[in-house]
């Protein structure tokens, strides 16, 4: 970009849930807890709704990593969310392995509605990992 330095941090796509993790990510901004600006969020209703094909699409189109900010046990749609999100993680990581893609480029952590610091910590360490692994 003209007139400045392009931020070359790894590109991370975050699937974040509207009711639970989105408020935490918003609050990270409110509290000015900085993280790389190459982290992009797409809101979804529930973390167990992420289709593996969306993750594959993101990684194939140029994202370095995908982070699922999961509802965990806070999911307003029910307790089975944790197991289901875990299962879709497992399936997608198998798919990544089959395609010769590092399965660690997909990461998941439970982010509660006030877990701003945890979110920032996770995306920062994920970004560091992706930065190292791509070199």
């Amino acid at each position: 970009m003209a007139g400045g330095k392009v931020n070359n941090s790894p590109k991370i796509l975050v699937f974040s849930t509207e009711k639970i993790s989105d408020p935490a990510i918003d609050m990270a901004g409110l509290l000015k807890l900085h993280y790389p600006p190459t982290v992009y969020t797409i809101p979804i209703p529930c973390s167990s709704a992420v289709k593996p094909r969306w993750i594959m699409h993101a990684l194939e189109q140029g994202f370095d990593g995908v982070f699922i900010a999961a509802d965990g046990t806070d999911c307003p749609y029910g307790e089975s969310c944790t197991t289901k999100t875990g299962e879709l993680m497992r399936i997608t990581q198998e798919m990544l392995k089959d395609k010769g893609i590092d399965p660690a480029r997909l990461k998941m952590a439970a982010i509660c509605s006030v877990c701003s610091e945890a979110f920032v910590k996770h995306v920062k360490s994920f970004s560091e990992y992706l930065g190292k692994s791509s070199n």
Partner: protein
Amino acid sequence: MKNKIGVYVCHCGGNISDYVDVEKVRKAVENDEGVYLAKTTMFACADSNQKEMVDDIKDQGLDGVVVASCSPKLHLLTFRAVTERAGLNKYNYVHANIREQVSWAHSDDKLGATEKAIKIVKATIAKVRNSEALEPIKVKSIKAVAVIGAGVAGMRAAIELAEAGSEVFLIEREFFVGGRVAQWDNLFVSEETGKELVTRLYDEVMRHRHVTLFTGAEVIENSGNVGNFKLKVKITPRHFKLSCAQGELQKAIDVCPVVVPDEFNFNITTRKAIYHNYPSEYPQLPAVDMKNCTRCGECEKVCNGVDFSQQTEYLNINVGSVLLATGFDPYEPKKGEFGYGEINNVVTLQQFKRIVHYCDDKLMYNGKEVKNIAYIYCVGSRQVDGENKYCSRYCCTATIHAAIDVKKKFKKVHNFHFNRGIRTYGKQEVLYDESSRLGDIYLQSFEHDPPKVERVGDETIVRIKDVLTKDKELEVVADLVVLVTGMVPRKDNSIGNLLKVPKGRDKFFNEIHMKLRPVETVIDGVTIAGASQGPKNIMESMNSALSAATKSFSLINSGELALEPTVAMVDENACDYCGKCEEACPYSAFEKVEKSGKFIVKVNSTVCKGCGMCLPVCPTNAINLIGLTDVDMENMIDALVPQV
């Protein structure tokens, strides 16, 4: 496919444009496919801009709208309403969050923030391009509200809700109502005492047959959502029968051998395990403090009202909305903070008020008559080094009011106010004026050089460098040092965690927006009132209680809530019934049906909550969420990828 999309990029005063080059964002998207007009605006939410948007939609015939501004939690509904007013379906509006998730989060990297904002707006345009006109789904809402906390804010809210026509469950953790206000004596401006105010509200609460009050009660489980919260309430018994013969109660209290510090009087006095905080306290039935009771049985011998057979009860209630009014705790100074806990004549403002309450002819403390009183302001508030940066709002007024009362009650008293600037805002200025006329001395310290409290021989001395005398130190020999302690959140605010209500930087419950949505939280259906949200005086608490009651009522009033129409839809051609979606759905929203000679699933859209749990499990990818299809998702991802 939309081809007349309007894009509005907001400066938000400077909240966005100080870090994001909004003009650059506008230019970067104005030629995107489908974009018809792209504008920047100082405040997208301002009436003038909303009007301009309505005119644009009508005059230019826009078929899709994007506003790039703050979090959708704040203004999604505002701009949906704008599109509706202009005659466009509100689901042809899509919101882009470039404040909380861009300008604020990346205020350390302006270039990176601008680049991110451009991509987010492009992704949002990609989504609106494919958007469809939708109708909301209606669900039933239970016409009942749980009000947590029966202090003045909670009781006021309960009355308001009941008058409006709602069923109210008023749930108080303590055995008595009134919260902190019951601990105050006369109040400014009315000169009514806290107890009188509590009594008045309690009487009103009791008059309403739609309010059910639970004392000694705590919410221990929560499930469900706005419209239908399922709460489990634990009710601890008082171990007292409803009636107690006259005189027996006092006998029971007298024979109780347990003596514990009385928290109602901020530990300056003691009480027994059988107690009421003051005579005529409501509900007018004492309670047994089972944490401290030794079950010696002495009270049972003299009072037949005591009943140890009462058991803890559990109650399940269903409500449409929850209103939190759980109040505050006074700040507890650390040991040694201005001599607290080390010098024996250093007390807090709250303790001081109780001391004044119990003294009659002379103001006595530790057996000594008090003449010189030094008030040290902003203890635990506006801390330069500590955690609490906020002003507790009520303490300047409360202190000056107390100082005037003391001077009127005990003529020989001299008041010295060691302050950091007095904040008796509004009508409360009258008190400051009165106190000055009565001869009170005001000494203001520098922010980084607070007053010092020292014990020299048998005297307690307070020293200060006043802003007017600068390097010249002034000192007062004080018989009593009163630390003007502010408000902090309740030590046990577990109800907040149970309902997942976020807390702000001050650790009080956080509203969505201080001015725009001041009593709502991000948890749909949960509202907040009073000092649980941040320091407030009684009038401010009452105002917020009325506001929260109105907001909660608006959610339950019609008995129906409009929910997002983003439910699952099945591609009948692709579906080859396997039952996996039925297994995944927590709401049993799928039904097996036969169509065109094969079995497929059908979605019951009033049962489907749009969680999307069925999406990844379908082996033929036959299910999509309305408004979040594969096409939407892939378009958004594609827009986020390229270098700007």
